[in-house]
């Protein structure tokens, strides 16, 4: 046992991080591919259709077929586009969407830190919000640099929508930070040992869920893409692999938001009903998966918001509610200090 520990300690830090990053990247990309199939299947079943079932058993090879299709499509650049920014924009979206997974802890770290997260940053939540905010540039620049009107409208909407909803989202999360007393994602999960933050922060949780949908441009807040009115919005002009990158980024953001909801409000890898014999990683994946399912369920159920109502809702309902939640939490923590 001692020998094994020595061996582990002998491995250089950069190698551990490299291996962990590789594993996380692989898992996340696979999850992306299958969350796409997952979404198509669930949507189909909710609409009384069988869904993709031609490629492989139960359509399980569909993601591979889609990937091959994407790769062989022609990569178009419109004459009116700004070539450099046009080509750069999908990468901004994708890199920021992937970078977030560097700080997301998936399970309790064991032993010498081989498991858990790639890096436990003490300002993890700030890192996540900083990166996702940069991700918006990908969408805005893509729309602007396409040099055509629908993408421009899409990116203008994206900018306005993101500013309105990011504010409420951050405010709703601050309540959790006050309760946990830390900005480290691991620390936040540890603070939920006894009770999940979804119970004291129920208002914050509801605001977070709504704003998270708006942040990731998903129905019913998908005005940025809005196929029926903007023909795809910011990615109208994109095709082939570059379109695929936006697609990956969107789904990775979905997964990120689900993971964050799990970490901040649903107790991370803490077991429910004392079922501790099930590993924490399974708990984490189950909770994030349930959140993803809810996301898709939402998409099949609700029609798209009208743009002015979206802004109204963001500023006149969510923002005051998030502020109220923040003030209430602060007052309660200040005047009834528990044994924390």
């Amino acid at each position, binding site marked *: 046992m001692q020998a094994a520990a020595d061996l582990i300690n002998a491995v250089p830090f950069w190698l551990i991080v490299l291996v962990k990053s590789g594993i996380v990247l692989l898992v996340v990309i696979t999850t992306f591919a299958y969350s796409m199939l997952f979404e198509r299947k*669930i949507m189909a*079943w*909710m*609409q*009384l*259709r*069988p869904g993709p*079932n031609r490629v492989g058993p139960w359509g399980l090879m569909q993601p591979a077929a889609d990937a091959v299709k994407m790769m062989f499509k022609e990569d178009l650049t419109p004459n009116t586009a700004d070539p450099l920014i046009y080509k750069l924009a999908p990468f901004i979206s994708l890199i920021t969407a992937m970078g977030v997974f560097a700080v997301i802890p998936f399970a309790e770290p064991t032993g010498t830190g081989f498991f858990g997260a790639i890096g436990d940053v003490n300002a993890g939540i700030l890192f996540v919000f900083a990166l996702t905010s940069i991700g918006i540039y990908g969408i805005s620049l893509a729309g602007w640099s396409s040099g055509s009107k629908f993408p421009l409208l899409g990116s203008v909407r994206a900018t306005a929508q993101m500013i309105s909803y990011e504010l409420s989202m951050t405010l709703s999360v601050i309540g959790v930070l006050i309760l946990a007393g830390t900005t480290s994602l691991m620390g936040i999960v540890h603070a939920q040992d006894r009770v999940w933050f979804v119970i004291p922060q129920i208002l914050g949780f509801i605001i977070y869920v709504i704003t998270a949908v708006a942040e990731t441009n998903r129905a019913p807040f998908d005005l940025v893409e809005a196929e029926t009115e903007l023909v795809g919005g910011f990615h109208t002009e994109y095709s082939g692999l570059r379109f695929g990158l936006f697609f990956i980024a969107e789904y990775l953001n979905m997964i990120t938001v689900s993971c964050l909801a799990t970490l901040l409000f649903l107790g991370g890898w803490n077991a429910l009903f004392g079922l501790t014999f099930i590993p924490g990683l399974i708990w984490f994946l189950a909770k994030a998966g349930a959140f993803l399912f809810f996301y898709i*369920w939402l998409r*099949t*159920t*609700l029609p798209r918001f009208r743009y002015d*109502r979206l802004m*109204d*809702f963001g500023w006149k*309902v969510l923002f005051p509610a998030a502020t109220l939640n923040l003030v209430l939490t602060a007052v309660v923590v200040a005047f009834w200090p528990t044994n924390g």
Partner: protein
Amino acid sequence: MRKNLFNVGALFHGFRTTFSYFFYKKPTIEYPSVKKQHAPRFHGLHELRRYGDGKERCIGCELCAIACPANAITVIGAENTPEDRHSPGERYAAKYEIDELRCIFCGLCEEACPTDAIVLTPRFEMADYRRGAFVYAKDRLLVAPDEGVGQAPDERPNGIPSDLGMVSEKKSTVDVATGYDATARGKYLKEHRRGLAG
């Protein structure tokens, strides 16, 4: 706007509806692998029948061509001779062509035929890549000599049904391979109809 935003009951109603549909049996018939059984009197591809002794029923009278509202049928008759006998009577169809792209599958040719020679079968899969391939001549219309007399015209097992629609609905929705009855699903939906439609 306020009223709509805070109508949480409607929200839950919607969520419940989509979630319950998640578990329903799907009415999709997976066409190439599962085929729908059509009504017995479905109007599909034409067929020229024969008599039991192998002779053609068609006498080249061109009544079908005259009856055809789409001018899809071309018939050119010729005289039978003792050496070259095609049909029992005096004449036969030397050339019989139906342009299936013009045909509207109304079945008037079938009704006009005095010898029950031309009938519409339930076969419907005739897709092709060339327009010319849709002009069906005798080589494809006529029943092969070793395949009997062909489809009986207008088969009604129990006489003329009082409600034609009911019979066809019953027959056409049973999926042969799985035995799945789509009308049962329709009945269920009708009974449990909710929301706007109700």
